[in-house]
């Protein structure tokens, strides 16, 4: 069995090379790393501008963050951007004025910032977020996101395109009459993709977190990357064998990207509130990946049992679908 397995591995490796799979992965690695190092770490959100209408000059304020206005009308006009915060101190008690941006959490931050200005304890710099500085926090966050995206969308596509080639050539059927276990046909592809994804995860983490930061998180990251890689590779395998042509597969891929991955990013990365997202399995994988990058790995046994169950189920479905494909007419 193992002799057959090594030949399958060699053949799959050649297919991956000829399909430029590794080249694409390297290109992705380069692009992600350039974006993280040259763009993302330098991104910062501007402080909410604060406009003060204080006709009697009752409030001593830090001028760095505050712009004084002459009328209530000017204050309302300045706050029309739904980003700025206004303070009206024309009466006895000050009043924070702001137009809602549509997200309760962000409105709350704006309100808190306005009140901090009022009480004179505003400090616009957050140097440490948990045990990390701001740059490291950003690096970990975006690296986790890129790795999740790469494994869930790009890796999935890589395996599926390789399998579509074999399907179109009809060679899958030949494997039905070879003296080799059929599950090994799936396992060799899984192992190659898993190894390639793990190498990708190591490189992406080392390049963007630095060697010291990477060593700290890599065991947890590799575990999560391995789980995600296996699940997505099996989904890719299943779809590529089951769907009759690449057109249908492309449509399915679009659905997967739009309806499966996007809600996870939206729910986790924006202020969008969506309680039902907890029923989305990819959401938990994404959370687990981020937690691994912040050295707070998920320890719940139920999570790992669910992942194991999903992998076994997907493997059995893939095996069944492979048998059907082998038995199909030419």
């Amino acid at each position, binding site marked *: 069995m193992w*002799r057959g397995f090594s030949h399958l591995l060699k053949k799959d490796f050649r297919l991956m090379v000829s399909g430029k799979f590794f080249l694409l992965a390297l290109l992705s690695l380069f692009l992600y790393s350039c974006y993280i190092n040259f763009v993302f770490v330098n991104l910062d959100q501007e402080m909410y501008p604060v406009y003060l209408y204080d006709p009697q000059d009752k409030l001593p304020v830090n001028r760095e963050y505050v712009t004084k206005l002459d009328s209530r009308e000017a204050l309302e006009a300045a706050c029309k951007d739904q980003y700025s915060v206004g303070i009206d101190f024309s009466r006895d008690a000050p009043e924070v004025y702001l137009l809602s941006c549509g997200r309760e959490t962000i409105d709350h931050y704006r309100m808190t910032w306005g009140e901090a200005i009022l009480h004179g304890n505003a400090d616009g710099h957050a140097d440490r977020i948990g045990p990390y500085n701001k740059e490291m926090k950003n690096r970990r966050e975006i690296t986790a996101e890129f790795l999740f995206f790469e494994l869930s969308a790009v890796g999935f596509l890589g395996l599926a395109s390789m399998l579509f*080639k074999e399907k179109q050539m009809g060679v899958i059927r030949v494997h039905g*009459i070879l*003296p080799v276990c059929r599950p090994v046909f799936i396992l060799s592809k899984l192992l190659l993709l898993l190894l390639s994804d793990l190498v990708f995860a190591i490189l992406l983490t080392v390049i963007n977190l630095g060697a010291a930061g990477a060593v700290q998180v890599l065991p947890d990251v590799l575990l999560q990357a391995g789980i995600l890689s296996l699940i997505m590779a099996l989904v890719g395998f299943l779809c590529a064998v089951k769907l009759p042509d690449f057109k249908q597969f492309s449509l399915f891929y679009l659905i997967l990207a739009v309806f499966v991955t996007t809600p996870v990013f939206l729910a986790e990365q924006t202020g969008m509130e969506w309680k039902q997202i907890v029923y989305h399995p990819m959401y938990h994988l994404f959370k687990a990946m981020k937690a691994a990058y912040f050295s707070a790995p998920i320890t719940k046994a139920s999570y790992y049992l669910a992942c194991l169950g999903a992998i076994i189920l997907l493997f059995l479905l893939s095996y069944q679908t492979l048998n059907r494909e082998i038995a199909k*007419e*030419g």
Partner: protein
Amino acid sequence: MIEVKDLAFSYGKDKQALHGLTFSVKDGEIFGFLGPNGSGKSTTQKILTGILKGHSGMVSLFGKDMQSAHTREFFQKIGVLFEFPYLYTNLSALDNLHYFASFYPKEQRRDAEELLHELEFKKDFLKKPVSSYSKGMRQRVSMARALMSNPKLLFLDEPTSGLDPAGAVLFRKIIEKERKKGTTIFLTTHNMLDADLLCDRVAFISNGNIVALDTPRNLKEKNSNHSVVIDYLHQGKREEQTIEAPALKAGIPFAYDELISVHSQEPTLEDMFIQYTGRGLT
């Protein structure tokens, strides 16, 4: 070698593909399995090669019941040529053969280059990718793949499809050579000439039933009217007469100056098939 008794298979509730086939194939025999599209011949071959499961009835290969026959050893003993040349198009002929052969024990494998030479494969293409090959060349590589492991039982599905007449003749020679080595061959085909020239026995299958099974010669003889058509010249005129073959025992029973041709009126295998099944081999 192959024993099949009351073999039935269904793809679903109302899709009965095989209705209790019974036949056997002896060691070293070339057995032709003939039938139109959808008649059940591919289903039968898939069951015999272990690709399709869930049949009823008794199927035994190499003296072992099919339920337990599909082991690694079983697959080492069979070779299958599919209807279409399934090959890795990004690899060369040699790489394809080396890859597929790598699953068999070393002592069982044949030399890939030698085999391709025997199949008159163009040498210049040995290391070029299969994507640059013609259909005939791909069929040659596929045949080489099926023969690479020196199988004891060879399943051939339309072996001469996609070949020019010279290629078809060569393939028939190769199949004959395999038989001489003692290989048992299960030949599935539409091609009546292949069946007639190669097969020791043929089975006609129609709608999942075997409607006739015998040697091609017996099948034709049984249904022959035993007459011949003689074309001749007499007193400067060309004439033709049909007479019963036994009447020739005493010589040609009419006056003639010169014989031009004598044609047997024996039916062809295709005529027989149509007679037995009421369908053409399409």
